[in-house]
């Protein structure tokens, strides 16, 4: 063994190298305060290892990037740990770098003769930030796509060469395959190679001048190995433990596949760039132009940092104090701006809804991609475009939410706001039914037992108030009145019998029958109850006063199939209840709400013609409303009923 080592040393001289590397003198003894540089080297090594592994499974193109990251994260063995480590270690690196920088400035380690090393450090910092920017886009998800759009647009604000710089970064005038291949080449090739080169120089120069000793009399001198290395290793272990824990407990997020045609309202940069983002939000800053806020100010800050060694040289002790004051000022400003950004976002209902939607879309895309059909060749972006569970709420928000609501919101989790007389935004009152339970048992129960209340929303509508006023003035007007229709009379006239114990089971059965006629997916119906309900609906076999009143007496088609080619032939003036609430009924109703077979001309709902709502979109909307889509375990948009009720009770 010894002979072998001797031979190796003879051929390579490695003993001397090891000695050089490990037996560096540490005056004043090993200290915890010296560990930061080592943790950075360690984190970078971790990034190389996990990065190479991710590389072995990543495929940069607009139709494979999200898809391969999804695959790494959700299918490959411990893929989520590798990606999570890479994701969190990148953030750890930025934090450690900031600590390192602040310490170097405070300890005066940037001063002569270490100026060169300070500048090498600044270059390294820029490279790390570049790695972080380029890495953010690679998953090609909505979050990375829109955040990086902001970055490349900022580049274009560079004076003179802006447009060319942007084009070079993007690989063309717009985002596409080449944006990804270039970002990837930068992220995995060019920038890491530069980092290795500059890091080597940084460490070399560091060794040349030795440690900037904080307090030489702190303890007896020692050597790097093993005293300082032990402390360094413990610190690195702590870093590793933190990122590993985060990777496992909070797996790195993957939002929905990037889609330039889908607006994304939750765009934010990585948290450590939030301060810059918040800075750009000051209208006073924007008034001076984007170039000022996004390029000149950061440029000046970097400039002041860079000349710190010169400042200290020229101004002596005062220069050093100035530098220290500046670094504390920056740290405080960054902390305050970051805090502001977090605080404002947390209190911004719109942003929270957008975040919830981004999360929902991302989860859903992953859910669909994990399905038996896998991801089609045209990419995961098409999965969501064809998914009723994703598109339904959007279509509802766009086409229905002007009057209707869905569990108190627009379908997409946002509240409908309007200005009150004092020009203060308030929650707008819906002027048509809240369809959150449409076609379900709750809905049917409302209709059967409490009709006027169930449709009370309509009374908020201007047309209703106008018509009411006219009819009070003695004019004869035809309008849908939740308080004054035959159906309302039936439920209010029979309220005691409906609520009586002897009819409790009957009401339940009728509701079961009606809900089964609507037949929304995902409900288990009770066949016996349905049969009992059908009898009630068609034959009216109730207990007590209700006995003999059946639905069929007015709604002649109840219990029938909904016709494939619905016509108004034989319309009796009562809305058809044939498969009321089913997909077929709903499609016909949305297209022809004013048909005689429904509510006739007195219905104020506007028809959604194919010019407004294409057949494909109608299908997506109706399938969502009737639950006819691949099941989802993704949490839905939160109900906003409490907020609405609170606003109404005010």
């Amino acid at each position, binding site marked *: 063994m010894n002979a072998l080592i001797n031979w190796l040393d003879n051929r390579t001289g490695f003993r001397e190298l090891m000695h050089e590397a490990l037996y560096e003198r540490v005056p004043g003894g090993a200290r915890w305060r010296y560990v930061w540089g080592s943790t950075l080297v360690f984190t970078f090594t971790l990034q190389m290892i996990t990065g190479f592994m991710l590389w072995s499974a990543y495929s940069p193109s607009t139709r494979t990037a999200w898809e391969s990251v999804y695959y790494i994260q959700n299918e490959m063995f411990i893929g989520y740990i590798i990606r999570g480590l890479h994701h969190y270690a990148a953030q750890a690196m930025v934090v450690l770098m900031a600590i390192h920088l602040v310490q170097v400035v405070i300890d005066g380690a940037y001063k002569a003769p270490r100026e060169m090393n300070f500048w090498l450090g600044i270059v390294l910092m820029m490279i790390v930030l570049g790695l972080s920017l380029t890495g953010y886009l690679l998953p090609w998800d909505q979050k990375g796509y829109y955040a990086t759009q902001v970055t490349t647009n900022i580049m274009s604000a560079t004076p003179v060469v802006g447009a060319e710089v942007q084009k070079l970064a993007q690989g063309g005038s717009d985002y596409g395959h080449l944006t990804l291949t270039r970002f990837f080449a930068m992220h995995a090739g060019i920038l890491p190679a530069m980092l290795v080169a500059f890091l080597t120089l940084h460490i070399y120069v560091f060794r040349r001048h030795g440690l900037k000793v904080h307090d030489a009399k702190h303890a007896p001198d020692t050597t790097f190995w093993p005293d300082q290395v032990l402390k360094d290793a413990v610190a690195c272990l702590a870093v590793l433990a933190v990122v590993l824990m985060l990777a496992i407990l909070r797996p790195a997020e993957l939002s929905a596949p990037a889609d330039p045609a889908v607006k994304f309202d939750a*765009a934010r940069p990585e948290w450590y760039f939030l301060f810059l983002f918040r800075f750009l939000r000051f209208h006073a800053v924007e*008034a001076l132009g984007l170039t000022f806020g996004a390029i000149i100010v950061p440029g000046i800050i970097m400039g002041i940092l860079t000349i710190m060694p010169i400042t200290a040289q020229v101004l002596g002790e005062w220069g050093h104090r100035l530098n220290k004051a500046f670094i504390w000022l920056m740290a405080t400003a960054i902390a305050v701006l970051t805090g502001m950004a977090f605080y404002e976002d947390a209190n911004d209902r719109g942003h929270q809804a957008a975040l919830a939607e981004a999360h929902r879309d991302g989860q859903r895309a992953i859910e669909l991609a994990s399905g038996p059909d896998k991801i089609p060749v045209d990419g995961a972006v098409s999965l969501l475009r064809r998914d009723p569970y994703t598109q339904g709420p959007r279509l509802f928000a766009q086409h229905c939410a002007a009057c209707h609501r869905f569990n108190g919101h627009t379908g997409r989790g946002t509240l409908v706001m309007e200005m009150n007389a004092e020009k203060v935004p308030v929650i707008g009152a819906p002027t048509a039914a809240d369809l959150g339970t449409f076609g379900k048992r709750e809905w049917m129960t409302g209709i059967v037992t409490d009709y006027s209340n169930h449709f009370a929303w309509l009374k908020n509508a201007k047309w209703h108030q106008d018509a009411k006023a006219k009819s009070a003035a003695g004019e004869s007007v035809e309008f849908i009145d939740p308080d004054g229709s035959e159906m309302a009379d039936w439920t209010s006239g029979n309220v005691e019998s409906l609520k009586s114990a002897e009819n409790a089971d009957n009401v339940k059965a009728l509701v079961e029958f009606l809900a089964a006629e609507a037949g929304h997916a995902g409900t288990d119906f009770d066949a016996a109850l349905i049969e009992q309900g059908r009898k009630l609906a068609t034959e009216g076999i109730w207990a007590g006063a209700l006995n003999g009143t059946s639905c069929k007496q007015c709604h002649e088609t109840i219990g029938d199939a909904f016709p494939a080619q619905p016509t108004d032939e034989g319309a009796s003036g009562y809305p058809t209840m044939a498969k009321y609430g089913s997909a077929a009924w709903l499609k016909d109703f949305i297209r022809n709400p004013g048909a005689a077979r429904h509510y006739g001309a007195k219905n104020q709902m506007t028809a959604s013609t194919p010019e407004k709502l294409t057949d494909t979109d109608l299908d997506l909307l109706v399938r969502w409303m009737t639950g006819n889509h691949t099941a989802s375990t993704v949490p839905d948009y939160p109900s906003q009923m409490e907020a609405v009720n609170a606003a109404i009770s005010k």
Partner: protein
Amino acid sequence: MTSSPSSSDASPTAADGHAPLAPRRSVLVHLVTAVLSFVIVTIPATLGGLFFLDPILRKRKDAEAGGKSGEVSRKDEKGFIRLNLTRDSIPADGTPVPVTVLDDIVDAWNRFKNVPAGSIWLRKLGDGPILAFNSTCPHLGCSVDFRPAEQDFFCPCHTSAFALDGKKTNDVPPRDMDGLEVSMRTNGADDPGGQEIWVRYQKFRGATAEKIAV
């Protein structure tokens, strides 16, 4: 070298055993060597650099998307795309409606046929003209929303706000919202009173006061 040769192996540093070499070579040799070394490094580096500049150097541009290829049946030579909506289907009260524009997208080696290319806002002014805006924020490229309560357009990224006619109402955006050319037609022929809405969908550079199509 601090370690002394401990075995009979020849020392790796042969120079140690020789007298220092006299500078025998002429200036010319120095020069030629320097130039050669420079050239062998510079040529590949320049070639590599030029390749990297492809996005601004390449002369032959990718074929224009759509155009006369006929892939988008509802697109004409001037780049106008027919929307699914008709004039009558847009709210008369001026409320903006979001529309997804379908187009062919050329992305490097791919042509994606008839896919969602972007989203726009459409507004009808009474019985008058139809306004169309690209929904991409002219500030830094986020998406502009319609706020019903405030009756304005608003970008949640850095709070750019615009009036419903697209004019900017605060200092954040560098310019107004990007209006798009609209042409009303009947059976594809210009007709100011027609029902068909044709829009020339374009994207514009962000962060500039001027509106520059990309």
